[in-house]
């Protein structure tokens, strides 16, 4: 469980994170979304005590991160990929971190195995590819068998196989009851991995919602229907979660239900359809609309 309360970070007169309040719950993968420069990394660094907030607090498991007696058991973190001395071998990097907590050698071997690094454990990190570096970062994050994972852009630089591996890993960690908090600037990636979303833009909270709700409320679920009996079909489709609008005479844009349901309803009532097109406005577009709106809104506010 991660809780941020009015978290704010200013550098001089530049506000990087502004009044963020949110909770990240155990048992699900929570995506932390925002364009580059939105303040995601700074927020994660404040949760981990690397940066101190200008205002507000962040706690992990009911107390500040630094107050835990075994911090690595509380949180495993992947920050920027290169948080490693390149002259040290992968094994010795993990061993040095493990020693701070008295974590046994066997656990080091285990996380190397889990991340597929056993064969290169004796090699210096200098020669690692970006993907291997990310795997080493994940291995370090898992070292303390932590209750919470905080991962900053874990799929950056990974090949498709690596992306799939991370996705599966994160879901299985959440399924074990852990809190998993993952940042990304890619909505499409989060839609596949996360269940819950916290979206920020320019350091401000834009949305704290589930992926399902976000998908339903974005344009992604719109179906275009062309029919001579638009009025009757609208009445037949009426339901609490269904939203029907009309952009032109005889044309309906239906949200909240799918093409199959519309087609079957029309057929059951003998309504002819000339067109039935699911409109695939991507999640990425919806996400960009959301963040773009917020940027314009804040820019406008600052001018006023």
């Amino acid at each position, binding site marked *: 469980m991660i809780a941020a309360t009015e978290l704010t970070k200013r550098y001089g007169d530049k506000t990087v994170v502004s009044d963020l309040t949110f909770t990240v719950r155990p048992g699900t993968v929570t995506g932390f979304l925002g364009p580059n420069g939105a303040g995601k990394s700074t927020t994660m660094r404040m949760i981990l005590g690397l940066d101190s907030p200008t205002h507000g607090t962040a706690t992990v498991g009911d107390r500040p991160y630094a107050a835990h007696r075994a*911090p*690595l058991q509380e949180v495993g973190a992947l920050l920027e990929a290169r948080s490693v001395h390149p002259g040290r*071998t992968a094994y010795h990097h993990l*061993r040095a971190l493990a020693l701070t*907590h*008295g974590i046994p050698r066997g656990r080091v071997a285990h996380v190397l195995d889990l991340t597929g690094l056993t064969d290169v454990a004796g090699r210096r990190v200098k020669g690692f590819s970006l993907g291997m570096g990310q795997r080493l970062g994940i291995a370090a994050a898992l070292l303390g068998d932590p209750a919470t994972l905080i991962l900053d852009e874990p799929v950056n630089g990974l090949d498709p196989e690596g992306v799939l591996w991370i996705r599966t890993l994160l879901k299985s960690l959440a399924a074990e009851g852990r809190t998993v908090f993952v940042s990304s600037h890619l909505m499409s990636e989060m839609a596949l991995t996360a269940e819950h979303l916290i979206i920020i833009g320019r350091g401000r909270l834009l949305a704290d919602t589930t992926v399902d709700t976000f998908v339903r409320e974005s344009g992604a679920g719109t179906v275009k229907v062309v029919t001579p009996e638009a009025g009757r079909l609208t009445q037949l489709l009426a339901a609490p979660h269904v939203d029907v609008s009309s952009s032109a005479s005889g044309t309906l844009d239906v949200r909240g239900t799918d093409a199959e349901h519309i087609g079957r309803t029309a057929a059951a009532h003998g309504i002819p359809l000339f067109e039935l097109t699911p409109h695939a406005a991507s999640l990425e577009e919806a996400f960009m609309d959301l963040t773009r709106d917020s940027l314009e809104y804040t820019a406008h506010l600052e001018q006023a």
Partner: protein
Amino acid sequence: MTTLAPATAPAPGPALSPARVLHSEWHKLWTVRSTWIMLAASTVLTIAGGIAIGASYESGQAADFALDPVQFLLFGTQFSQIILAVVGVLFIAGEYSTGMVRSTMVAVPRRVPVLWSKAGVVAGVVFTTTLTTLVVTFTSGQLFLDGTDKELSLTDRGVLGTLLGSAAGLTALALVGLGLGALLRSVPGGITAFIGGVTVLPEVLRMFPYDVLDSVAKYFPGRATEGLMTLHDTPDYATTGPALLALTLWTVAILGTATVLLRRRDV
């Protein structure tokens, strides 16, 4: 979370402790090549310097009567002291330049135990290796000095004490390097500050025609360490007690400032 609840219970499992952080820093020091290379280089330079000076010495040379019989054999430390300080600078500033410091401070979020463990490791390692090196240097240099006016034995009065003091001085310089590395968070910055502040500045001060500046210069870390290397007190250097005190104060002041800033600054 429920499955991991024991993590917060006061169980005897993994947890931070000062001794464990110290062990981690010890492990870090020895698992990068630069440590081995630099300690080997400083040892070889110091011993080679002692042998070269000892072998080329002929008694009775007019200019040589003022040479201190212990200090002149430790001539190589002029170079090795900089290497040892670089060991200190790299040990912490290297973490900032590589990004390792983020991993370190996430593992030890209270931060301060990291700096003090590094100081403990540097102190122990540098003192032990330099003391050994200095004893070997003195003994090898003396092999060539039988029958000269500089002939001395390790067991002669004051010799071992002088070597102990010298090792302590060189250890303090390495700790000053560590402190400067922690303050400046930059390898080139730390090395420049060390060479500038410890080696160059006191010499510059001595160039001014004021006695007070000359006296002040004696208590700068580099000159105080040189003073510890002399068997006999001379007006050129601070005497042993004040020199050790000055070195202790420098080290504590720099590491103390680094501690305060480490706590306050963002990583």
